[in-house]
């Protein structure tokens, strides 16, 4: 699979972009290089998406390829399966992850099994994008982190960018990937910061975790919006002379356990941080894998810092739900102080 990593420009524009702008650039790039890329979703056309992720794309690529669908989530899940089987590369947007649940039927029953059940005769190169996560004081049902629901589905890829450059490179890779990808965009980070993004069509690998910060005392593993809290925690720990390594998982499925194991081999200690509820969260998978494959390297129990096992609270309490820097620092200390 050389194509996903290929750069397509010799000279490319570099710009300071927000994450949502980087998503828009990646979509535009993918549509320009491949006319089978078609966007589908609610309000993605003239309105450019409620978060503006498809801003300006209808003007550039036309209403045939940037299609406002009816308000119809089962359809937004199923229509791409038909398009993809006929050789298109649909990128469907669910407006908020809270409305993605009808789509799970299509992902489990069709998108991820079309290749298997036809022995490769038909396949499903679709991308399902959705903004997800809390911290922006959104209404009820708009703030959950349900990535673990998807992690259980065979045949799927789950990708969560944590920064503008990651969003650009990973989304391009997701669109070029020949199989279904769920691409979850941490909406708290959509406009939180700018980062230099080279719009050269260069994709990032979908089978790798990224080591953001090198360190030797403890491994902090996270993804999506929680990476910021995790980095802040590492800074706070550094003030006390603790040298933390920070890993951005980025692609949850398939999981690059090798990178995490290699790190824990050096540090002997690990804290996993995610916004989603604790029980059955994706951190449990990483912890289980560490117990199974990394036990001899561990010198302390693995800690998970996660959302509580509660219904995601409405905005007045959401800050008390989300893992905070102090919670992460406290967990790291427990791990570091373990005899």
């Amino acid at each position, binding site marked *: 699979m050389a194509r996903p990593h290929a750069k397509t420009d010799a000279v490319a524009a570099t710009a300071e972009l927000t994450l949502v702008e980087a998503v828009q650039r990646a979509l535009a790039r993918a549509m320009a290089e491949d006319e089978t890329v078609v966007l589908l979703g609610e309000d993605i056309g003239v309105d450019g998406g409620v978060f503006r992720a498809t801003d300006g794309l209808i003007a550039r690529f036309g209403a045939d390829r940037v299609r406002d669908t009816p308000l119809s989530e089962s*359809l937004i899940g199923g229509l791409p399966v038909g398009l993809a*089987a006929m050789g298109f590369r649909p990128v469907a947007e669910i407006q908020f992850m809270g409305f993605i649940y009808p789509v799970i039927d299509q992902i489990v029953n069709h998108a991820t099994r079309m*290749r298997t*059940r036809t022995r490769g005769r038909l396949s499903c190169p679709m991308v399902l994008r959705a903004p997800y996560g809390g911290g922006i004081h959104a209404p009820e049902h708009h703030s959950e982190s349900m990535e673990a629901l998807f992690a259980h589905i065979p045949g799927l890829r789950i990708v969560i960018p944590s920064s503008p450059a990651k969003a650009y490179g990973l989304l391009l890779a997701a669109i070029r990937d020949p199989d279904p990808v769920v691409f979850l965009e941490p909406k708290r980070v959509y406009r939180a910061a700018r980062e230099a993004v080279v719009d050269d069509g260069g994709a990032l690998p979908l089978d790798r975790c990224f080591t953001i910060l090198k360190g030797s005392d403890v491994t902090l593993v996270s993804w999506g919006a929680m990476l910021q809290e995790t980095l802040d925690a590492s800074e706070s720990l550094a003030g006390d002379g603790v040298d933390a390594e920070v890993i951005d998982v980025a692609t949850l499925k398939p999981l690059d356990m090798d990178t995490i194991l290699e790190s824990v081999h050096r540090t002997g200690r690990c804290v996993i941080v995610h916004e989603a509820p604790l029980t059955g969260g994706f951190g449990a998978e990483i912890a289980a894998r560490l117990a199974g494959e990394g036990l001899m390297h561990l010198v302390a129990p693995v800690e998970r810092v996660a959302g509580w096992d509660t219904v995601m609270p409405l905005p007045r309490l959401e800050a008390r739900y989300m893992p905070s820097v102090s919670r992460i620092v406290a967990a790291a200390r427990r791990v570091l102080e373990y005899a």
Partner: protein
Amino acid sequence: MTTVATFEIGYRRILDPDGTIDGAPPAFARDRNTLVALYRWMVLCRAFDAKAVALQRTGRLGTFASSLGQEAVGVGVADAMAADDVLLPSFREHGAQLVRGVTMKELLLYWGGDERGSDFAGPRHDFPVCIPVGTQAPHAAGVGLSFRLRGEARAAVCIFGDGATSRGDVYEAMNVAGAWTLPVVFIANNNQWAISVPRRAQTAAETLAQKAVAAGFDGCQVDGNDIIAVREATAAALERARSGGGPTLIEALTYRLGDHTTVDDASRYRDDDEVGRHWKMEPIARLRRHLVDAHGWTKAEEEALIADCAAQVEAAAEAYLATSPPAPASMFDHLYEELPAEVARQRAALLRED
């Protein structure tokens, strides 16, 4: 109150249960060869269904859903299709699949629990059967959209049951097909039952065809035991779809003469009288009567056709039974185009079990 919109649902039957032709039949209904070909497909389908049930009863096939009594729907619909149209069938449309070119061996492989049965050699772009009821309808909209985007004069044909029309997916698909004028033909195979739930308990709607009205396009009913009406209505809907006229819903009224599947016992919820009444309306005897009365179909021709179908079915069953199971590791081989390292390790672990 003023009337702002009015709608009508038409009903069409051409071939009566007594084998006579009524009304203004389409040209093909006068052509002996065409009628014999349709008849042959229906007889083959019934022989196939009977063999599949027999194989299941003797432990040589998995759970199977027979299309006994409904042969005119699948055969009539598929016969009207062009080779490059795309069929998206439910799990009870063996007749349609056979006409499309799926082999009986492939069908038996699928129902015998082998994915290779859906890797048809024939209609490479047709969809495999759909078990989650109605969930293939959105795919049909997607297939239709692909034709629109490429400017191809092709159509998607989606067949589902009466029960499926209660599902949101089916409505969502019809709704978008109407909104976008997609080349999709929706066939509601109304066999009066969804396992044990009768059509009347499924919806208060007078007809299923009128569900198209809410989605902004035409729906009609046909006698689903009249293969001439099914084929005529499908051909007209396909023509409209291919020429940019958008979708159609055809409700084909038929009856499930058998159990829901081989693990169902229909006597728990419906009486034999009802089934007996419907045996008098079934599609094969009807067309045979017509062939005999109007086209001099002979006993010798009938016997030869039945023997030929039986031989084909037997040969297919033998070929199926002689097929060895797929290699265990094949369950990994089409999971992704390229198996991720993670899952490749599991594949290796499976191989080590041997």
